[in-house]
């Protein structure tokens, strides 16, 4: 394999990895906040992709400009899912882990059904966009513009997240809530409000990812499931609850997937990622940056 081809693989893997990190970070954030794994995370992504598609279809506005609207929509959806479902799942006295898993699984199936009902199981795609189909040639390495756009957005979002967590009152409230839920009540933070905002934020993050993916990926009711497992692996690899871990793990996942595809048939490219993930958690059961 030539050096150029290798650079090509690494560059594509890196960009895809940044997008994976963007998909996964909301999941990790919600888990860090309240120890809940959202098994409908992939379906949040799917909703964001359909929202982008639907808005584009109706308005003809380019998906790049639609991203803020989709993000806001997902924020509202995340907060509502917390207030309408997850809040009640957390009240269970028995089997609380199971209740969370299956309440969010049920939601995932419901969302799949709804999207099939409204959009049919057909594969959709957005055509004639500013970025779609265009590539950037850097000394013989071809990079598709949608992926470059996704990578840049991902870096910006992680930068913004860092500022949010460290510089704002909301970030500190999030941090306080995840440190000690009992103390939070004492200092007068409304837990429900923080949790609802946290779910909103987590969903908004995956909303951005969906608005990016919709440009270059087929949209169908099962598309969430395709990315969900990668997101869970990314979060578990980085360590549940760690924002920085999600970024590092996302990039690793993207690179390993791209390199595996060189060695094995592309239908097996995920196997490399899964094997790496298993290797890591068997040595470090809480992931690379997880709290033990």
């Amino acid at each position, binding site marked *: 394999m030539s050096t150029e081809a290798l650079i090509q693989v690494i560059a594509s893997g890196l960009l895809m990895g940044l997008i994976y990190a963007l998909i996964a970070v909301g999941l990790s954030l919600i*888990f860090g906040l309240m120890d809940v*794994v959202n098994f409908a995370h992939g379906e949040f992504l799917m909703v964001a992709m359909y929202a982008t598609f639907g808005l584009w279809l109706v308005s003809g506005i380019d998906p790049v400009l639609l991203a803020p609207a989709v993000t806001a929509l997902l924020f509202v959806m995340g907060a509502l899912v917390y207030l309408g*479902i997850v809040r*009640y*799942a957390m009240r*269970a*006295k*028995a*089997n*609380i*882990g*199971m*209740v969370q*898993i*299956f*309440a969010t*699984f*049920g*939601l*995932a*199936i*419901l*969302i*799949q*059904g*709804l*999207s*099939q*009902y409204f959009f*049919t*199981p057909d594969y959709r795609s957005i055509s004639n966009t500013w970025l779609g189909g265009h590539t950037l040639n850097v000394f013989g390495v071809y990079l598709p513009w949608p992926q470059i756009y996704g990578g840049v957005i991902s870096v910006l979002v992680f930068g913004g997240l860092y500022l949010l967590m460290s510089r704002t009152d909301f970030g500190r409230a999030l941090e306080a809530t995840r440190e000690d839920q009992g103390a939070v009540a004492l200092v007068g933070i409304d837990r429900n409000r923080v949790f609802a905002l946290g779910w909103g934020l987590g969903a908004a993050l995956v909303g951005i990812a969906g608005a990016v993916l919709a440009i270059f990926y087929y949209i169908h*009711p099962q598309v969430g*499931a395709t990315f969900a*497992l990668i997101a*869970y*692996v990314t979060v*578990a690899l980085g360590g*549940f609850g760690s924002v920085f871990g999600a970024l590092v793990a996302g990039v690793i996942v993207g690179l390993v997937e791209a390199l595996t595809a060189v060695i094995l*048939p592309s*239908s*097996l490219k*995920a*196997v490399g990622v*899964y*094997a790496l*993930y*298993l290797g890591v*958690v*068997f040595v470090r*059961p*809480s*992931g690379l940056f997880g709290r033990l």
Partner: protein
Amino acid sequence: MTSAVLPNSVLANENAFASRRRNQLIIAGLIFAAVAALPRFVTDVYMQNVLILTLMFAALSQSWNILGGYCGQISLGHALYFGVGAYATTVLFVKYGVSPWFGMLAGGAMSAVLALALGWPCFRLKGHYFSIATIVIAEIGLLLVHNWDYLGGALGIQWPFGPDNWATLQFARDKIPYFYFALGLFIVTWLVTYFIEESRWGYWWRAVKDNPEAAASLGVTVFESKMAAAAISAFFTAIGGAFYAAFVAYIDPESVMAFRFSLLMALPAVLGGIGTLWGPAVGAAILIPITEITRSYAGGGGSGLDLIIYGTLIMVVALAKPEGILSIFRRSAKSENAS
């Protein structure tokens, strides 16, 4: 603490317990007999099919319940063991002419060994980390089978057509024998659970689920307990997979190893009551007919209505009855005692 004379309270408690166990067995016998009579009244082939699937998932969920419900290790990768059972039986029968009865046991044994090999690293993981590892391992299995030509790859393997025969487990004309096989499998898994429940493993598993640290201090070998539960659970799951292969007579990776099978094995137990003797059966009796019937009547043309009903049902039960449907009866029994 060995006293020559037992207090009366001890004997009374022992007698009450023994009669409760005996009654459970008698009631179970009556229920099994009633179910066995069902084909006399259900003559519609479609409904017979639903009954067979219900019994099969009751048995599968009963097997899942051993590891997930009693021992508290939430596996979401049992499709792997189901697939091993289905493929082992199919390959041995189709390629080598080995009786499915033997293939079934071979698949069960392979699954049990696989569960032990995977349990070695996986049981170090806790909570969600464990569950996600099980999903990932099952997914690796699915991808490998997809790309494994010997196992038919993505195309899968077709069972040859033969005469209706218990020896080869093939019944093309009349599905009733499958009904009895599935019922038999469910009864076996129920009895295994019934007897293990009142044994060292049964108590140790529940202790491991509730508090592994306290369990270890009481002499419970936590790791070995989990391994035993995993092996038994995987064995019967594979038997279920072998049955399914014979029943549908055609398998491919998606039809026996997809993630939804892992979910379908866990859900009935969760729905009915996790870690209980009848939870999986009650859950399957509700969930499977609804799934099948909505799929046939509402799922036509991929409208998604079946998924909407199914998803809502799961959510509502998880939120409204976290301890499962059976907990309704347990609560009323308790208040009777109190009054």
